[in-house]
């Protein structure tokens, strides 16, 4: 199984006893940065932040910025289709990968895509990104770079309730202004950060803060948009708005956000970092639901997340040594996922399915859709040897394969094909949602 820095948060890079780890951290060369075309070609082990640092002297940067960017690798980002705060405006990893060199499960090397990013045939680059290592190992990655913004404004708005903060998010999104980032932290998270070495001066008495960044090519436009956003947030219940006056203050505001997961390490010895997405208008309701779930299970849940994308990270702090607590954390996690699904959301926005979310897949995909995914996996890796046991709940698929024909109409003579006869053959699904 392939592995980069191992910073993934869904267990995608965890191996069971029978797997051989292919660790890619020594493939760490930045092969080319082409400033004219704003393209970089890198090996998979290049650390995300290192690419932006290397591109900065040329006035460019690599936009996807997961919070682990000082450690995580571009190869891992490709496998997970990683996001980050600035993906609100600039898009996730998938929007930035132009071409890939991939080693398939049988050792063959294939080139996918083209240097300019136009698919060469079907969009196999798009299909590969986010496949969590199941389709092969990317050994060379061409990515798009963006010009460094010439103007930036970073605002911190604080709110007396989570609901009003959530409503502020919706108001900004609906205004047509696209912030570079729009992040939320709740009180529990604020206090964890303020208690840590990453203290950013967030107001401890706030129920929530929004960190909003606007950027662009012209000072006047960014300043005008920042004014509009500030007005919108004040109208929607912000108690105060602080604007970073210089680069150092901006850095400090961001450090608190980016190191929030680390700061939560202070709360207790174990932490479950959750990841789910809801429609943005559902944020206020879902945040309240999460609060209720935390109270029901008597757990500490801290929220720090990409509010502009509706991408939640409810984090549960607990002590795994306490008998019975893990089961409560598990039950609460499941309820949180179910709440997000109930409002039309999904079970992961950027951390991937890995092992952690495997059990939730049948909650959002029916049998045929899961079977289709598994069949596609077998196109790339017929024996399912690369990163086995991830993404699609395989044991469930095998059961489905034996369920026989699905009626296709009057006089149907639907046949069951064994799922193993053709590497591309799709195991039959039940057509129904089912729990594993």
């Amino acid at each position, binding site marked *: 199984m392939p592995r980069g820095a191992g910073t993934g948060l869904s267990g995608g890079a965890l191996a069971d006893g029978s797997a051989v780890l292919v660790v890619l951290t020594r493939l760490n060369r930045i092969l080319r940065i082409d400033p*004219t*075309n704003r*393209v970089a070609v890198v090996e998979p082990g290049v650390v995300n932040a290192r690419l932006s640092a290397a591109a900065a002297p040329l006035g460019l940067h690599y936009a996807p910025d997961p919070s682990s960017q000082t450690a995580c690798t571009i190869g891992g980002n490709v496998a997970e*289709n990683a996001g980050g705060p600035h*993906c609100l405006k600039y*898009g996730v990893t*998938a*929007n930035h990968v132009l071409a890939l060199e991939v080693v398939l499960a049988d050792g*063959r*090397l*294939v*080139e996918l895509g*083209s240097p*300019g990013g136009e*698919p*060469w*045939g*079907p*969009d196999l*680059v*798009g*299909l590969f990104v*986010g496949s969590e290592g*199941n389709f092969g190992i990317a050994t060379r990655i061409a990515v798009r770079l963006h*010009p460094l913004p010439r103007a930036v404004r970073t605002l911190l708005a604080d709110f007396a309730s989570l609901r009003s903060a959530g409503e502020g998010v919706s108001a900004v*999104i*609906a205004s*047509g202004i696209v912030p570079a980032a729009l992040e939320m932290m709740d009180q529990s998270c604020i206090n964890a950060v303020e208690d840590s070495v990453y203290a950013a001066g967030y107001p401890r008495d706030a129920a929530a803060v929004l960190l909003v960044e606007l950027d662009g*090519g012209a000072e*006047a*436009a960014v300043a005008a*948009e920042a004014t*509009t956003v500030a007005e919108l947030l004040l109208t929607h219940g912000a108690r105060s708005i602080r604007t970073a006056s210089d680069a150092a203050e901006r850095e400090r505001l961001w450090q608190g956000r980016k190191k929030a997961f680390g700061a939560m390490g202070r709360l207790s010895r174990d932490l479950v970092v959750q990841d789910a*997405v*809801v*429609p*943005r*208008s559902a944020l206020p309701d879902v945040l309240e639901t999460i609060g209720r779930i935390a109270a029901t299970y008597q757990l500490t849940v801290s929220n720090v997340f990409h509010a502009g994308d509706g991408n939640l990270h409810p984090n549960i702090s607990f002590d795994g040594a306490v008998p019975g607590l893990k089961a409560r954390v598990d039950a609460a996690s499941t309820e949180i996922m179910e709440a997000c699904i109930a409002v*039309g959301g*999904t*079970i*992961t926005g950027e951390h991937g*399915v890995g092992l952690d979310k495997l059990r939730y*897949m049948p909650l959002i995909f*029916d049998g045929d*859709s*899961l079977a*289709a*995914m598994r*069949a*596609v*996996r077998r196109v*790339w890796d017929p024996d399912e040897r690369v990163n086995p046991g991830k993404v699609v709940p395989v044991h469930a698929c095998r059961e489905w394969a034996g369920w026989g024909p699905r009626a*296709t*109409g009057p006089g*149907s003579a639907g046949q069951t*094909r064994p799922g193993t006869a053709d*590497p*591309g*053959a799709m195991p039959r699904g039940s057509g129904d949602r089912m729990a594993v």
Partner: protein
Amino acid sequence: MSLLERVRALLGDDAVEIAGGPDAVPRVAPASPDAVALLLGTAREEGWRVRLEGAGTWLPADAPADLALTTRRLDRVPAIEPQDLSATAEAGIGCDLLRQQLADRGTWLALDPPGLAGRTLGSVVATATAGPLRQGFGAVRDHVLGVTFVTGDGRLVHSGGRVVKNVAGYDLTKLEAGGFGAFGVIVLVHLRLRALPRADQTFVLAGTREDLTQVAEDIVAAGLQPAALELMSPALARREGWALAVRLAGSAALVASQEAGLRGASGGRFTALRADEAHGFWMRAAESVATRPVTFRIGGLPDSSDELLDLLQHQVGDEWVSASPAVGAIRWAGDTTVDRLRRLRRTLAGLEVPLTLERAPWPMRSAVGHFGAYREGVGPLVASLRRTFDPGEAFVVAVEGSE
């Protein structure tokens, strides 16, 4: 039981739109995704060959088949969510109707595909035909949050979802966007929207291609981020010379500052179009593409755009060309031969530039293929994906061509 009797029994009389068109292929218009699944499940059992159609205004409806499946009755828009900037629409809705419904709710799908205004959403997604707005808002795939599609043997498959970030499961949506229907027929699309721009301005400058190429480079170098930056041949732009069209869209403040930047970068040479002129300008350009028998797109690195335009001019002519030089995308329309297309594709392949045949009469499509030859080792993957999603080879799609 004849094919028609079988279809009528399955889907009802009103699902059969034309009992026999000019080429005597019955056209079937299922009214729901489930009906599409039922039809294709039966097609698989019966060994029927199926061609896919939308409004019939883009790809010629001329592929030899036992029946034509049109998505025309799949024209509902189940959800438009202005607060979330997302929408869900069935594949057979016309882009013009969809655009109107979205605008009524203050939202915008930032796609301006070539072709007539009534082209279906499904056609645009399945062929991944983006227009000039690809400069500011990306390829078709960047606007699609998820799809529901039906495989060649009648299975309904859901991929992605309706939220703006989603990594649950493999991204089969990417396979469907630009798959030309070879991997299933798209029946439902979840879309990423933008707020309707508060300001939307188009500026045009006519001149020589060489001069305009330099101006386009200056605009990019000045850090401007236009919604469209399109270099168009005289016939397409309906101008004496080549035209460089710049579209600025967004908040009033953003557009005002970009306009000032544009003046600075170009010495104030652009002419601003009135709103109605701008609408007509972009619409005529999109429609003109569909008046030519053949359309293809190529995608290279931005700094190769000029060289690629030279190559097109030399090998197939450049009367109807539209290019986004800053993203390296070029669309060509016109008339040509199978041999010329093949030669051009080979030349481009040597430059690592793929040519995707978007539109052509069936004899040319089947000879040249939408994609032609793949890079080494990719062919078996594509073939296996096709077997996966269309095990009975029901879909008549000229993917590779016959070379």
